[in-house]
């Protein structure tokens, strides 16, 4: 019995690694917001575990093992942040003012709209976390009584929308500065926004990377307050 569970877990991890590797391969050949690994790999894994009758229950143990590493992965975010600390020191006021404003606007508007649309309290709470980078949003979910899975889904979808809408929106608003564009994309679209910003240039990417780390802290500090007041 336990041998069967070990085999099932190993198979599930292998499926996840395979789907991720394949999505990365496709993403490198056809770069687009729609070919980011998590957006491609997730449906692939869903199809494979359904077809092979592993199912969510069989997959969950492997999921738990992979998910555990979100902890150390978040700690590791300090490294790109530290490497680019110069950009933060040179742009301290605009960068911080921008990321705090953007986070508050996105958070409060999302919670209020979710309430207006008659969504459940748990979903309103999930919406408050959607701009944070996924590992942080998932870790924060229990603190605001939101479902981690729904939070993860919202983070991935809104980060994707941000990278699709963001660059054109900023150009339409005549926002051309690298720091402004990077801060906007990193604050609202986290990891996917950083990847998109790096396409525009090093300073844009650095601003996005710093904003992602700082905005994650702002989200975790403000989410419980915003949910208490507006949800």
């Amino acid at each position: 019995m336990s041998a069967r569970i070990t085999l099932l877990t190993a198979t599930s991890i292998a499926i996840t690694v395979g789907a991720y590797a394949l999505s990365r391969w496709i993403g490198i050949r056809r770069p687009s917001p729609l070919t980011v690994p998590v957006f491609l790999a997730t449906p692939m894994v869903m199809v494979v575990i359904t077809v092979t009758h592993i199912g969510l229950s069989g997959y969950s143990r492997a999921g738990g093992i992979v998910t555990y590493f979100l902890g150390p992965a978040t700690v590791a975010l300090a490294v790109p942040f530290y490497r680019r600390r110069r950009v933060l020191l040179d742009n301290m006021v605009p960068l911080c003012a921008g990321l705090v404003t953007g986070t508050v606007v996105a958070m409060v508007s999302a919670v209020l709209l979710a309430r207006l649309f008659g969504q459940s309290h748990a979903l309103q709470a999930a919406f408050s976390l959607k701009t944070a980078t996924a590992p942080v949003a998932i870790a924060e979910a229990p603190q605001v009584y939101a479902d981690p899975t729904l939070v993860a889904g919202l983070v991935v979808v809104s980060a994707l929308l941000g990278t699709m809408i963001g660059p054109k929106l900023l150009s339409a608003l005549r926002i051309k500065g690298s720091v402004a564009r990077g801060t906007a994309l990193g604050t609202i679209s986290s990891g996917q926004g950083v990847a998109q910003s790096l396409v525009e240039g090093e300073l844009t990417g650095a601003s996005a990377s710093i904003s992602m780390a700082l905005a994650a802290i702002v989200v975790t500090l403000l989410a419980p307050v915003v949910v208490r007041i507006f949800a």
Partner: protein
Amino acid sequence: MIRLRLILVMLLQLAGLMALNLVGRWIAHTLRLPVPGNVVGMVILFVLLLTRLVRLEWIDATATVFNRHLAFFFIPIAVGLLGYGSVIRTDGAAMILIAVITVTAGIAATGAVVTWCQRTSQRDP
């Protein structure tokens, strides 16, 4: 031989990141911080790097792998959405509409505030 050494070094670095995550969780729990433990761990590592108590090369190799492949680690949670078919069918369209509106507002607000601050500071140095 060099390969084996690199693997051992990376495992040690992984242990270091896991230890910082544990310390972060313990601090967040003990002090009842509103911030999750992994974020506390991130802040601790940043401070250790700034104060040079930890050198970048002690942690770099494994941290780079985590940062490059961060998306891999949240695939399993996103796969969990498979069990949320009914929620997505009833509320999916509204959820995407809310996301489009708020993401647009957030990006516009962030970009505008950064640009405004930069202009203001240039005008009176």
